[in-house]
């Protein structure tokens, strides 16, 4: 079944048929759905089949590959999120949807790399969101109970047969400015005050302001060739700190990234040729906004436009996708 936006009547039918679904939509639609085998998060921004769009009338549906007909839907909070990898099947994958700025969000972001067996199976997903011109509160939904939550993350662990493997990949169009400054945070967290810039103790907020640095492109760090982004949220000049949408870690070196002129074109160039269907994909709201992706198409990679992406850990300004081979 094609991963795309559907009318609520179609989604209700799919739920009644017992399909295993990962859904994304406005809360007003999700709250009307019957109980069933589904998980969801709130968001009204999507990369549709034809274009990027805002919709509060349609629901994005990923029907999940469930060849062994074995899955577990489970909620997580800050007390049990560290169990997530151990809860997964020996072979399979986990989709995780987290509400933003809650304890589970912070805890997962800061401590995911300490989770036991984190890399044994793909753990991917997204951070729920809302209409940016509203006072809506992002939520997650557990289809089995029919209940929503502002605090809890929701996940579905899916088992795969031994002859199948789920593979998680990212597409990051940002490149590190390797000729620019090196930034070393002095502590782990969602903000940077003082840090080392090229080895010298410097206030990062003052440095950015004094040097008129564009904060639309993210900070980046290099994980053995994978460029991991951390997006800027705000420069708090009064309190001399830089606020971020994902954490930085004191044992990592960060660099600024090179600004992108044409997001849609760069995505097209960066997307690998794959010969199996994409099981799940999501892309970042900052790419959607800064890249003006509304009305533009990214072929084969439909999905929610999110307030953060999960690919074993919390990422920003990145497209995440899963294939089953």
């Amino acid at each position, binding site marked *: 079944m094609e991963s795309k936006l559907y009318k609520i009547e179609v989604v209700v039918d799919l739920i009644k048929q017992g399909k295993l679904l990962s859904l994304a939509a406005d809360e007003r639609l999700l709250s009307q759905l019957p109980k069933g085998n589904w998980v969801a998060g709130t968001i009204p921004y999507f990369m549709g089949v034809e274009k990027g769009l805002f919709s509060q009338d349609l629901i994005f549906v990923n029907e999940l590959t469930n060849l062994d007909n074995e899955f577990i839907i489970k909620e997580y909070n800050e007390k049990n999120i560290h169990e997530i990898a151990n809860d997964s099947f020996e072979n399979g994958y986990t989709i995780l949807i987290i509400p933003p700025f809650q304890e589970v969000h912070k805890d997962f972001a800061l401590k995911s790399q300490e989770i036991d067996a984190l*890399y044994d199976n*793909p753990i991917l997903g997204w951070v729920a969101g809302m209409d940016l011109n509203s006072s809506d509160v992002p939520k997650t939904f557990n289809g089995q109970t029919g209940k929503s939550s502002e605090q809890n993350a929701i996940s579905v662990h899916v088992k795969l047969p031994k002859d199948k*493997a789920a593979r998680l990949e990212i597409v990051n169009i940002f490149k590190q400015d390797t000729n620019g400054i090196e930034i070393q945070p002095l502590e782990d967290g969602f903000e940077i005050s003082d840090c080392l810039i090229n080895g010298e103790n410097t206030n990062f907020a003052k440095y950015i302001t004094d040097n008129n640095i564009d904060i639309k492109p993210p900070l980046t760090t290099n*994980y*053995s*060739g*994978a460029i991991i982004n951390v997006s800027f949220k705000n420069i708090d000049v009064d309190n001399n700190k830089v606020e971020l949408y994902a954490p930085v870690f004191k044992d990592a070196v960060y660099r600024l990234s090179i600004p992108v002129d044409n997001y849609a074109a760069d995505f097209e160039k960066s997307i690998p040729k794959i010969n199996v269907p994409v099981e799940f994909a999501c892309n970042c709201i900052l790419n959607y906004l800064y890249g003006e992706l509304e009305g533009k198409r990214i072929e084969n990679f439909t999905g929610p436009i999110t307030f953060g992406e999960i*690919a074993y850990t919390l990422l920003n300004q990145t497209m995440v996708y899963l294939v089953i*081979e």
Partner: protein
Amino acid sequence: MENIPPKDRPEWKSLLNPDNNIELNNFVLQMKITQAKKDIKKGKKTIENAVDEIYSLCLKYALAVKQDMDMVFNN
């Protein structure tokens, strides 16, 4: 898996050397090796444990890591 070299090849430990800044292509391998280097540095893991885990990961994703295996082992 025929394209995953034996675990006793020295390149496995070399991959985990903190001074080895090799750039890999497969995402989970990139993440796993970076985390393993940090864990070894902090004393949370021995290099032998880390090699065991990375070897198992490569067996599971033999097809996906083939390009990286060819590069690391000069095939």
